[in-house]
């Protein structure tokens, strides 16, 4: 299928999400759409898939114009979409998910109230999965499958509807390195069989590896087409609109004494299952310890336990020799711990509050921010103005609500707040998730500065690039345990393997404990 978009424009209020975008996807081609978060890639694809209607412009398939008012039209035209957040019903089986909306039935009555033909659904899944090497069990419940396999289900779903053009929206964002390789293999086999693929991403190396053509989008406009041979710097510069330094400069670490020591710490998740299993490690002053791992292997719970947001079931941790296990979050923060939580909107900010208020959240009750029962607004605003300048926070004013800021600038507010007091230990969880390249560069530089000033940094990230660029030492977390501790020069392949649980002798202790021990053991 040959797809052409001509002059697509979409406005949301005063914001122009897509500004006269032209795009041509040739048959059998992998066409990468590169751009930062908020550049308008997803809006464009939603228009193409019939989820959103364009204000101007037209879509042509094989030279003839089409108009999609709902996804069904796009599906009928042979377009399939794999959304970044999977469109799968977790409690359904793979086969049920695949046939949903396009079910075959054995007729039972006149109203289309036929019984589902489950056998046929199963066979359909197996047929497609064998043809393209998408191994999956049709009877498995989707919620029990790893994300990589869920993604395969999405692809099978599209292929069974005879999609000849597949849109993959940030497909690698949730995958382990190994799963990413599997996906790339599938993409290649699809390309060979004549399918076109629109590959949306902001990861430069993937684009270079997979794409036949690259279209770069910035602020809703196409800013250029590039061959896959373009260098990282060229692509990044085009994407951001200025030259970018991708890895911060970093001198060798000068290590001081131990700042954070964690001793066989065990933490439960919200459901009471053990999420962190007896983890032990130390971080020294002037060191960045990177914790690599696929999302959901206990990193979140570990960070929350270290700042007192979640009780430790067992074990202890100390900052500068002082045992802080079981202490309140406020005490821990006052002991010189800075915390950049992974979800800035839910935990890092009160999005309805102004920028100035958010910047003072951790010290509003202390002089000079407060005098007696009242807030000293002059001091607060002056400090905020100062921080906005210092941390390059792009906001209309310090009185604007935090929700009006872009993701990158919201993150800068959090970082500014946490780094504006003296911090002996910085815990940064996914500090650059969903943040534009320019802000990533800034946040990374700040983290390295903190470390150079002699603080300890615990950096949790699922992005290997980030870990590799910043960490002095790398710990890999898998199923709640630190399965490996490596120096910074470890190879990506090894890290990828460890993150997928491929390390030697992992799992053994993990599989033993099924449920957390009950409250009172029988005497």
């Amino acid at each position, binding site marked *: 299928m040959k797809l052409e978009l001509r002059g697509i424009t979409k406005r949301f209020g005063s914001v122009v999400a897509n500004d006269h975008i032209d795009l041509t996807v040739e048959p059998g081609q992998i066409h990468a759409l590169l751009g930062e978060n908020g550049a308008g890639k997803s809006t464009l694809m939603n228009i193409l*898939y019939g*989820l*959103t209607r364009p204000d101007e412009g037209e879509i042509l398939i094989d030279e003839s114009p089409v108009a999609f008012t*709902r*996804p*069904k039209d796009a*599906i009928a035209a042979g377009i399939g*979409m794999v*959304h970044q957040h*999977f*469109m*799968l*019903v*977790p*409690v*359904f089986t793979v086969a*049920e998910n695949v*046939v*949903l*909306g*396009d*079910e075959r*039935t054995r007729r*039972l009555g006149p109203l*289309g*109230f*036929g*019984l*589902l033909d489950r056998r046929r659904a199963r066979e359909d899944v197996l047929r497609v999965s064998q043809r393209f090497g998408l191994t999956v069990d049709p009877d498995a419940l989707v919620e029990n499958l790893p994300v990589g396999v869920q993604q395969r289900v999405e692809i099978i*779903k599209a292929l069974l509807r005879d999609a000849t053009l597949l849109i993959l929206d940030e497909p690698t964002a949730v995958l382990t390195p190994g799963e990413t390789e599997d996906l790339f293999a599938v993409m290649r086999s699809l390309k060979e069989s004549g399918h076109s693929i629109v590959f949306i991403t902001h990861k430069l190396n993937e684009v270079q590896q997979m794409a036949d053509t690259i279209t770069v989008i910035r602020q809703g406009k196409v800013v250029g087409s590039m061959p896959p041979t373009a260098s990282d710097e060229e692509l990044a510069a085009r994407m951001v609109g200025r030259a970018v330094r991708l890895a911060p400069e970093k001198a060798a670490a000068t290590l001081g004494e131990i700042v954070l020591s964690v001793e066989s710490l065990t933490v439960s998740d919200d459901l009471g299952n053990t999420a962190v299993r007896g983890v032990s490690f130390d971080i020294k002053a002037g060191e960045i310890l990177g914790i690599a791992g696929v999302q959901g292997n206990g990193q979140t719970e570990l960070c929350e336990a270290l700042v007192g947001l979640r*009780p*430790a*079931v*067992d074990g*202890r941790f100390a900052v500068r020799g002082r045992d802080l*296990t*079981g202490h309140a979050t406020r005490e821990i923060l006052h002991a010189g711990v800075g915390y950049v939580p992974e979800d800035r909107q839910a935990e890092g900010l009160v999005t309805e509050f102004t920028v100035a208020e958010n910047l003072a959240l951790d010290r509003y009750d202390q002089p000079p921010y407060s005098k007696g029962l009242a807030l000293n607004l002059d001091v607060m605003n002056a400090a905020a103005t100062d921080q906005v300048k210092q941390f390059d926070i792009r906001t209309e004013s310090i009185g604007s609500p935090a929700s009006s800021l872009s993701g990158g600038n919201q993150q800068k507010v959090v970082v500014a707040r946490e780094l504006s007091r003296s911090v002996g230990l910085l815990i940064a969880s996914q500090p650059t998730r969903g943040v534009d390249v320019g802000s990533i560069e800034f946040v990374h530089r700040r983290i390295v500065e903190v470390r150079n000033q002699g603080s300890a940094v615990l950096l949790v990230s699922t992005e290997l690039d980030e870990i590799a660029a910043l960490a002095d030492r790398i710990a890999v977390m898998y199923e709640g345990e630190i399965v490996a501790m490596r120096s910074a020069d470890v190879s990506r392949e090894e890290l990828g393997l460890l993150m997928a649980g491929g390390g030697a002798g992992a799992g053994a202790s993990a599989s033993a404990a099924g449920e957390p021990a*009950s*409250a*009172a053991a*029988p*005497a």
Partner: protein
Amino acid sequence: MTTTLAPSLPPAASPRTRRRRRVDKKTLGGLVIGVLGLVDIVGFGLEARSGDARLGLTLAGASVHLSPLKLPPGPTAIVAGVITLVLAALWLRAELGKLARRAVIVGSGMLFMLSFLCWASSGKTMSLVGLLQSSVDRSIPIVLGALAGCLCERAGVVNIAIEGQLLFGAFAGAMVASASHSLYLGLVAAALAGALLGLILALFAIRYAVNQIVVGVVLNVLATGLTGYLYDRVLVKYQNTLNSPAVFSRISIPLLSKIPIVGPVLFDSSIFLYLTYVILVAVQIGLFRTRWGLRVRAVGEHPVAAETVGIRVLGIRYANVMLGGLVAGIGGAYLTIGSVGPFGKNVSSGKGFIALAAVIFGRWTPIGAMFGALLFGFADAVQNILSVLGTSIPSDFLLMIPYVATIVVVAGMVGRVRPPKADGQPYVKS
């Protein structure tokens, strides 16, 4: 008991475990079962009056006559209590499978009821078949209300307004049947009245994305107020023409109704029971075996995913909420033209809320909800039969039985349940 011994433990075991003071669910369940056993023995066994309890197994006029079961209340309760205590020990000590756990719960509950009934009817005759028949009859509106709940909630709309739909159905059924002298017309009117309330719920919950709990509560208040007002102003005045409907008569299914015990309970009732069978089976198969059901459940779990494969989310929600109202309306009709005849103020008396509990008890499945409804119907019937038999328990407490049963069941026996993911969340297209 064991927890108070804690100080004798070596102190260094674990420094920070003070947040885990909660008794886990298994221990709690075992304790509850144990208490049931003790009540069997102490409350009913040792306190029993002399004189056998006679439990009747046939109704008057049955072709096959079984002689009533004669049980000495004291020994019966003590034996039941001992068995229950053994079950409790088993529960606490052994690793039981899901099925075995359910068997223990049901078993200890039935033993408790047995000793209770023997205690209450010692020296008298109580018709066991009559009790069961009345349980089934009383659960009809609850089953239908619960099916309405399943239909709505599986599509992602919380229906608190079941109570109001029952009431509307009861009112419309009585009035139309009385005015038109046609019971079937009354039934149709009741169904439509329920569906009308469903439509209002759908409009506010789906179109205007108002909080569904709030809309539901408001609709209940509306239904109570409106039917109450019309009753006072219209029905009382024109009692003879507008509020004196006939009642559907019993239809005995040939052969099946002759089976001892089972026959009179399950196959000798009005059209409502048979309608309930049909709707129950249809909804169960519909939801889990058909294209329609797959789509409904997808809409209730993940509406965006359903939308992306071309399913009309809002259309399905409208249809299901109205269908639910229709079913609840039929349940409401039972309260008047299926049982007592004329409409009385607030005849539904909380059955809609009990139906809601039955939905949760049954984990949002029609069959499960039916079992929940039967349980509540049974509690209701027991309350009724006890007030007839005359016991030392004050009648106010007897009236509490169905509601206490609801609370105990929902709080204690329904473990971790998972409602449809998008239940109660309005779907707004971007």
